[in-house]
């Protein structure tokens, strides 16, 4: 059967659609052919697939072929069964007949004969030639057709249809199509069944020795082909898949090793999409096929079907895995294949797949994720192709042009070298090429990285090519290998890579020259024993590849470095674009970087920079620092070339901020040098630069700096520098941002002086001008280096700047500065609250309590109010305040760091001088509470007045109030003004009381002394200067018994002193004057007598004159004395004066204390007696009353509302007219009755004069008619005598305060008496 392979192939190529046979019985075909063929392809056809499920096929192709056609006639029966798929699928019998007899006798038997073959699917088309106008003919045709139907159609199946040649019926064509399809479907089903049976039979024999894969293949492919013809591509594809599966099972069966194939010329050119590459007969081997060709053949059919199914994505996806799988197979057979066959095949296969899938535009036809996957696959294919291409390029010496980037290294260093059985050797005539290559190797300058970065280039080979190539040369023993590396042991280690690009140029020169001396140029003729040199390896590989590669384009791409780069760029771009489309951004961007490297090499820095920026952004964004460190210098170099200073600086800064371990110190210093060089010299215009990753800053740990409103301060900030060396900043400023006041804007603190930042931690102090109240955080750090304006936003975390962490998580910003709202910064308070002695110099204590604020250099201005004097000459004392622990307790609580005053053991004391009302604070007082003692004296001119116990006098504190104004200047322009009230008082408050009135007229006057101060008072002496009308009893001087003294009075307690006095005579003023004047004159009497007697004696004129003047003098003195006496009498005592000599012993911290000795010479022992004077008014006893008013009793029945009653008062004269102090008018007395008009209704005269005899004992009754208006206890009407002083009226018995008024009596008319 395998012999039919060629024929099978031919048949397959010649027929690609289903055939429908036309049995033209009545020679009608030429007439109706065009009409029939117009219906092809059939628009909609329903077929059954392999699993007998109906499938709708559109545009079903078929061809009508007459049975008499040679194509159907000349077939052997055996062929027919084998290639059954090409046999007609339906037979149309075309007949016509116009006569029933003819039909019965001729046509019917003939038709029976035709349709008796069961194999055929047939139906009859009766063609009616009758013209519609010819009724007879039409009728006849109908009759014949009816007969035909009866004879050939069955109940189960309609096998006839009628075609009217002059105008077919409307549904004829549909009928025809459905009949055709019915036949085709039936035939197809039957044939599928047949093939399946055959295949099953063969499959059952699979493990028998007779089994032949070719036979199986023919059957299987026939079935597949049949499906394909019927447009059942899915089924066809499944057949091919099964075929492939079966093949892979058989080909890998042990013991059945066959030739692999792939050794023919052109085999390197992948034919995975080209099913016509080689006829099957060429690849048949024994009972099977060569794997190399056959697998590609199968894949080509699969892809063809997939394309037909419009599934290029699947082609790509199957293709990718096919290439991977096939590449593995190629590896297995590599030692039989030409040099680098595998690489070349993969390249061409990938390109073929890419081209095949790209040439079809399927955009928008599929779901986005499938499309994404499709792009990804294409990216993978490009990438795969690119790797293999690079490998080939490396082998022929373009290694220096391959960028040693991580991506290339990752791809190439893990890709093993090709393993030919024998490494190709240098062709005999290739010495000029070798020389050329050597020259190229020599001239190749290793790419020096920018900034002089010394870094081992990443390997782009799995192991050293030199060794690998020589090892694979058959005749070279392992020992010989080392000859190659003689003197270069460093290159033998596994990490060493391409020798030419690795070692520095000078060293390489030595190496090459050494090689030259070792081997003369004449030995290039490929002596097998000598190890090959690199150039020779390249040349040999080139020749071998030339032999391998049959694709001219591919070879062209490898023919020169330029072409290589072109192709390389094309592949890289393809891969990158596709990866980008597939959202594999990392793959895409990385390949963009490779494109950038090429652009860079060609001086196209603009493009290169753009791509590099993308790569850097990707790595930086995701924090892959190692990778970033590899690319960033390239970007920097591009930017430098483009004179993009801002970008270049930013790159330098980024480089500096990368992990310290990624670059050596020297390299980092180079970065810094570049930054400085640009900043200081090259740049013309200022360039802003963000150095957030490099210079970070933070406030100092601990609480924020706290300032009061309006205070300047010094802010200390920690700045971390990521520069490797010291760096001088021309200026530095730091912005402060208010935390809760956004519109305030940031305030910049400047330090205009140059600052040198050491690497690592620096502490920088900045002068802080007064800020508004609020809380501030650090904003941004800005500064200038030369023309470079840098700016940093990042806060360091308190440790070294963690620059590898690119993620910007929000760090809660700690306030660095707090400026408090205006608040009292200091408190001045009076040290004591108790009163001080008035009119005496007293220490007034002022407590100065700084509230979390230093009072350094504070000055206190003291201004006294009216009635207050400061003893300026005296020192002012200042001492630490220790007594205020209570008052400052709450302050201590909220401020732990403040020195606890009460715990501070050091008690400072200092004497200060008051200059122009100002006191300068000593240094020790700046932070602690202190008290200033100021000697002041409250002046009061008025004499304190005692009060009577009968009519207690209200004490007014205001008299003793004095105000002291204090102004404290401290801090920066902080001055606070305080007014403190000081309370001064007399030592005693005096009240008097007549304790007893004795029978002999002696009055015992009790003087009660109430101490007003918080100090112990000691009374040494007390005496009373009595006013007129009072005299001391006995001969006393008005002093109590002296043995009572000294009398101690405790603070705020009382003491009493008893004086014994009695009433004296009241002296009239005139009487007193006369008395005194006369007395004086009497005393002068003698002097006048002397003058008279001298004048009587008579003497000389001179003596008289003398006497005259003497007399004049005496008169003058008399007149003077009189005026004095007048004054004296005028100022006659109307009040008594109590004098108390006392001493005081008290603490100034408590209150009153002994007065300050102004001169300061005061000794402690010296008792200071103070005198206290108090005026006491003594009143002579009041006279007896002269009138008595009595209220006459009310009726005993009581009062009730509305009841008329008479109120009666009796007025009686108690004294005679001689002793009457009352002014009266002819014995008439004015009276007045007053009552609350709401309670009482009065009738009669309320006011008037009544006549009362002036004789003692005369009496009169005043009566007024009243009606009570309200019930209850009400105040009765009162009788008043307005012209008589109240003291002269004696109310005896006194009138009632309240009287009871009953409710009105009930009316008896309505009430039944009880």
């Amino acid at each position, binding site marked *: 059967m395998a012999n039919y392979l060629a024929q099978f192939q031919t048949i397959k190529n010649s027929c690609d659609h289903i055939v429908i046979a036309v049995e033209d019985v009545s020679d009608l075909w030429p007439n109706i052919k065009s009409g029939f063929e117009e219906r092809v392809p059939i628009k909609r056809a329903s077929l059954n697939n392999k699993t007998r499920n109906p499938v709708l096929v559109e545009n079903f192709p078929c061809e009508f072929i007459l049975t008499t056609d040679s194509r159907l006639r000349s077939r052997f029966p055996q062929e027919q069964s084998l290639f059954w798929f090409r046999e007609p699928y339906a037979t149309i019998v075309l007949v016509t007949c116009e006569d029933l007899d003819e039909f019965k006798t001729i046509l019917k038997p003939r038709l029976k004969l035709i349709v008796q073959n069961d194999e055929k699917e047939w139906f009859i088309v009766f063609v009616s030639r009758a013209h519609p106008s010819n009724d007879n003919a039409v009728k006849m045709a109908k009759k014949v057709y009816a007969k035909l139907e009866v004879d050939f159609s069955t109940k189960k199946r309609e096998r006839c249809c009628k075609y009217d040649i002059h105008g077919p019926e409307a549904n004829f064509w549909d009928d025809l199509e459905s009949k055709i399809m019915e036949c085709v479907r039936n035939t197809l089903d039957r044939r599928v069944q047949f093939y399946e049976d055959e295949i099953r039979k063969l499959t059952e024999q699979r493990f028998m020795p007779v089994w032949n894969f070719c036979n199986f293949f023919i059957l299987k492919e026939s079935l597949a082909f049949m499906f394909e013809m019927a447009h059942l591509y899915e089924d066809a594809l499944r057949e091919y898949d099964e075929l492939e599966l079966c093949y892979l099972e058989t080909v890998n069966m042990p013991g059945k090793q066959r030739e692999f194939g792939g050794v023919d010329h052109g085999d390197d050119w992948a034919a995975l999409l080209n099913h016509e590459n080689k006829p099957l007969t060429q690849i048949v081997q024994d009972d099977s096929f060569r794997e190399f060709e056959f697998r590609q053949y199968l894949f080509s059919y699969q892809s063809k079907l997939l394309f037909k199914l419009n599934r290029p994505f699947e082609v790509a996806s199957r293709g990718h895995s096919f290439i991977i799988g096939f590449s593995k197979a190629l590896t297995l057979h590599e030692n039989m294949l030409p040099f680098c066959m595998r690489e070349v095949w993969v390249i061409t296969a990938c390109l073929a797949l890419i081209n095949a899938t790209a040439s079809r535009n399927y955009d928008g036809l599929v779901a986005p994720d499938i499309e994404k996957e499709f792009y990804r696959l294409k990216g993978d294919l490009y990438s795969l192709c690119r790797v293999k291409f690079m490998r080939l390029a490396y082998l022929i010496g373009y290694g220096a042009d391959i960028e040693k980037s991580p*991506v290339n290294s*990752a791809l190439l260093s893990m890709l093993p070298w090709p393993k030919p059985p024998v490494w190709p050797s240098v062709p005999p005539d290739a010495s000029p090429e070798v020389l050329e290559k050597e020259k190229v190797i020599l001239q190749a300058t290793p790419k020096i990285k920018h900034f002089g970065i010394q870094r081992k280039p990443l390997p782009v080979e799995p192991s050293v090519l030199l060794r690998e190539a020589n090892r694979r040369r058959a005749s070279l023993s392992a020992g010989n290998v080392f000859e190659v590396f003689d003197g270069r042991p460093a290159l033998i280690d596994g*990490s060493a890579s391409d020798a030419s690009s690795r070692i520095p140029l000078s060293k390489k020169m030595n190496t090459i020259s050494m090689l030259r001396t070792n081997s003369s140029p004449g030995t290039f003729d490929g002596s097998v024993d000598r190890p090959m040199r690199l150039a020779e390896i390249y040349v040999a590989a080139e020749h071998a590849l030339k032999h391998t590669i049959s694709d001219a384009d591919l070879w062209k791409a490898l023919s020169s470095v330029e072409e290589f780069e072109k192709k390389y760029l094309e592949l890289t771009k393809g891969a990158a674009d596709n990866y980008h489309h597939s959202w594999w951004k*990392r*793959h895409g961007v990385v390949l963009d970087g490779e494109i950038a490297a090429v652009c860079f090499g060609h001086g196209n820095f603009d493009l290169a920079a753009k791509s590099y920026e993308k790569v850097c952004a990707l790595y930086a964004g*995701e924090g892959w620092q190692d*990778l970033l460190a590899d690319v960033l210098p390239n970007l920097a170099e591009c930017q430098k070339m483009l004179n993009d200073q801002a970008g270049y600086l930013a790159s330098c800064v980024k480089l500096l901020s990368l992990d310290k371990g990624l670059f050596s110190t020297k390299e980092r210093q180079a970065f810094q040098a570049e930054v400085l060089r640009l900043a200081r010299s090259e740049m013309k215009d200022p360039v802003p630069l963000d150095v957030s990753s490099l210079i970070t800053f933070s406030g100092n740990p601990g609480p924020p700096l706290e300032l009061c409103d309006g205070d300047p301060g010094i802010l200390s900030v920690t700045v971390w520098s990521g520069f490797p060396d010291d760096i001088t900043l021309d200026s530095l400023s730091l912005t402060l941002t208010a935390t809760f006041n956004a519109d305030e804007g940031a305030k910049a603190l400047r330090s205009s002086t140059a600052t040198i930042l050491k690497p690592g931690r620096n502490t920088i102090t900045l002068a802080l001008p007064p800020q508004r109240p609020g809380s501030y955080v650090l904003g941004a750090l800005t500064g200038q280096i030369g023309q470079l304006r840098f700016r940093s936003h990042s806060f360091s975390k308190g440790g070294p700047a963690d620059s590898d962490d690119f993620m910007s998580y929000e760090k809660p910003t700690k306030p660095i500065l707090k400026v408090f709202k205006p608040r009292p910064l200091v408190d001045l308070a009076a040290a004591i609250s108790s009163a001080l002695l008035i009119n005496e110099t007293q220490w007034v204590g002022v407590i100065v309590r700084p509230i979390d604020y230093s009072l350094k250099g504070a000055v206190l201005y003291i201004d006294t109010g009216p009635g207050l004097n400061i003893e300026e000459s005296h020192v002012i004392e200042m001492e630490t305040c220790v007594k205020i622990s209570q008052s400052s307790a709450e302050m201590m609580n909220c401020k732990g760091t403040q020195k606890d005053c009460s715990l501070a053991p050091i008690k400072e004391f200092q004497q200060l001088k008051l200059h122009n009302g100002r006191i300068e604070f000593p240094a020790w007082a700046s932070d602690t509470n202190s008290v200033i003692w100021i000697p002041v004296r409250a002046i009061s001119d008025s004499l304190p007045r005692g009060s009577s116990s009968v009519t207690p006098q209200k004490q007014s504190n205001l008299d003793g109030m004095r105000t002291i104004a204090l102004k404290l200047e401290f801090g920066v322009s902080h001055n606070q003004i305080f007014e403190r009230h000081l309370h001064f008082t007399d030592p005693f408050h005096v009240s008097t009381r007549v304790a007893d009135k004795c029978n002999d007229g002696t009055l015992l006057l009790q003087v009660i002394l109430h101490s007003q101060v918080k100090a112990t008072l000691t009374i040494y002496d007390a005496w009373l200067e009595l006013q007129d009308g009072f005299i001391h009893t006995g001969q006393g001087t008005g002093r109590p018994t002296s043995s009572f003294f000294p009398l101690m009075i405790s603070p705020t307690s009382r003491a009493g002193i008893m004086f014994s006095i009695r009433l004296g005579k009241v002296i009239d003023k005139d009487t007193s004057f006369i008395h005194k004047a006369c007395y004086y004159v009497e005393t002068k009497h003698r002097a006048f007598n002397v003058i008279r007697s001298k004048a009587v004696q008579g003497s000389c004129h001179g003596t008289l004159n003398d006497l005259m003047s003497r007399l004049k003098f005496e008169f003058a003195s008399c007149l003077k004395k009189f005026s004095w006496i007048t004054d004296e009498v005028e100022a006659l005592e109307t009040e008594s004066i109590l004098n108390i000599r006392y001493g005081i012993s008290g603490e100034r911290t408590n209150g009153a204390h002994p007065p300050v000795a102004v001169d300061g010479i005061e000794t402690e022992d010296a008792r200071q007696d103070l005198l206290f004077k108090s005026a006491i008014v003594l009143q002579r006893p009041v006279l007896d009353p002269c009138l008595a008013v009595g209220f006459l009793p009310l009726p005993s029945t009581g009062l009730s509302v509305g009841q008329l009653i008479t109120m009666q008062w009796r007025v009686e004269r108690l004294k005679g007219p001689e002793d009457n102090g009352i002014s009266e008018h002819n014995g008439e007395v004015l009276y007045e009755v007053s009552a609350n008009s709401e309670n009482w209704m009065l009738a009669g005269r309320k006011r008037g004069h009544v006549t009362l005899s002036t004789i003692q004992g005369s009496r009169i009754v005043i009566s007024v008619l009243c009606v009570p208006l309200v019930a209850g206890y009400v105040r009765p009407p009162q009788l008043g005598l307005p012209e008589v002083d109240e003291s002269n009226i004696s109310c005896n018995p006194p009138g009632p305060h309240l009287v009871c008024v009953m409710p009105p009596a009930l009316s008896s008319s309505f009430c039944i008496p009880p």
Partner: protein
Amino acid sequence: MATTACFIIVSRNDIPIYEAEVGSATKREDAAQTHQFILHAALDIVQDLAWTTSAILVTEMLNAFSFFILTNKKYWLLQTLLNPLYLPGSRIVSSHFDTKVRALARKYL
């Protein structure tokens, strides 16, 4: 052929937070970048998986992967991430964690 497994834990924002190279092969110091590169590129695949499989763990918790999946790894990982002092996104520097990972690697590779 001696293999080197490079194990990197990547945080949610694709930032490498832990890196360990385990395996028997001698270290090639110049290959560090290559390893990083491979793993970085592999993130594309992980991302694809996260998109298509909607595995919550992958997207939500951590994009943790390695060349070889270590079975017990997750436990230690979680323990580290549950550490309240761990700042999301910062590198894992605990030597204890490092030792554990290496021990697990030896056990399972």
